[in-house]
């Protein structure tokens, strides 16, 4: 009986995680599309310049600067925000899994998952 309950919890948790990922991708795609439209309206007829690497300014890399630039009606920082959200979806999944393993009292996997989360966040 206990084994059965554990099985159900496992499955439920996985389903929630799956949905979380799907909606995360959907939402971030919508933001990217919105940003893309603004970008086309503002810069659609200019020349693209991706053949030399220059790196990106702060407003494409840092959330606070991104939001400021979006407030000024810029398109590319809005795309960048969508991309940031996309990058965060698998990270949210990891956080969710940690809670799941805590509920199951599977401390070995709390530790393993916590380590993975630590590696990701340490480099952000």
């Amino acid at each position: 009986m206990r084994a059965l309950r554990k099985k159900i919890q496992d499955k439920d948790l996985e389903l929630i995680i799956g949905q979380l990922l799907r909606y995360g991708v959907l939402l971030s795609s919508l933001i990217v599309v919105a940003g893309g439209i603004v970008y086309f309206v503002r810069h659609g007829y200019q020349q693209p310049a991706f053949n030399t690497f220059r790196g990106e300014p702060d407003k494409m890399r840092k959330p606070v600067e991104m939001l400021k630039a979006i407030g000024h009606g810029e398109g590319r920082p809005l795309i960048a925000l969508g991309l940031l959200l996309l990058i965060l979806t698998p990270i949210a999944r990891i956080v969710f899994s940690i809670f799941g393993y805590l509920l199951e009292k599977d401390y070995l996997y709390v530790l393993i998952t916590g380590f993975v989360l630590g590696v990701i966040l340490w480099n952000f």
Partner: protein
Amino acid sequence: MTVLVFSGLIFAGALSAGLLGSLTGLGGGVVLIPLLTLLFHVDIHYAIGASLVSVIATSSGAAAAYVRDGISNIRLGMFLEVATTVGAVAGASLATHLSTAMIAIVFGAVLILSAILSFFKNQDNLVTGPGSRLSQWLKLASNYPTPEGRKDYTVKNVIGGFLVMNVAGVLSGMLGIGSGALKVLAMDNIMRAPFKVSTTTSNFMIGVTAAASAGIYLKKGYIDPGLSMPVMLGVLTGAFMGSRILTRAKVGQLKKIFAAVIGLLAIEMIYNGIHHTI
């Protein structure tokens, strides 16, 4: 060429890459980066950044369906992510120190490896019984659905699989690809997990591995929104279309053609790398 035309062409190219990648199981990144660098003359750093973003999108987008079917082994994936995330961070840091030419050469070599790996035979003889002590301790045994009902399996060679996963992580972080072929090799051929379990668990892992290097890419300014937008949307659309066709199409012939294309792109990348024309 205006931004509008350029973005439209990139979207179409990314869509084809995503479609072919999902039909053949090789992923979109392997053909996307040569396309961007060789055809559109995009700097390889920007190409890698845009590819990594699209890798996360397809992995996360597809995971929901696999999880629902109960095929992927979450504990196995989570444990192996220790190896891939550490590798990805190392690979991404390495990429920031390598020259464009050097990255192109390594990329070409990995392309050839991926093309060869795609012809490896699936190992579908299940490992049953109690499994090794390490796999017991890590609770890696599970079951998966087959036409004859759910079947139990366990895995072996945990350490071997872990080490290959580490290499897969390094390549993913260094080149902005999912390294799906190598991840499947580690689980299927080395750890002897069922093929279906290996491919779906690999897909599940790819997003987390990519997220580990995405932080570094973002900091270094590899992820350009203007370029990543059509790439990500194109690959995602293509992969979605591919998952709809996959159940019906015969992919044997397609796989051979795709492997040949990848081989040619690989030679082109290596040639351009050696002559510093990339």
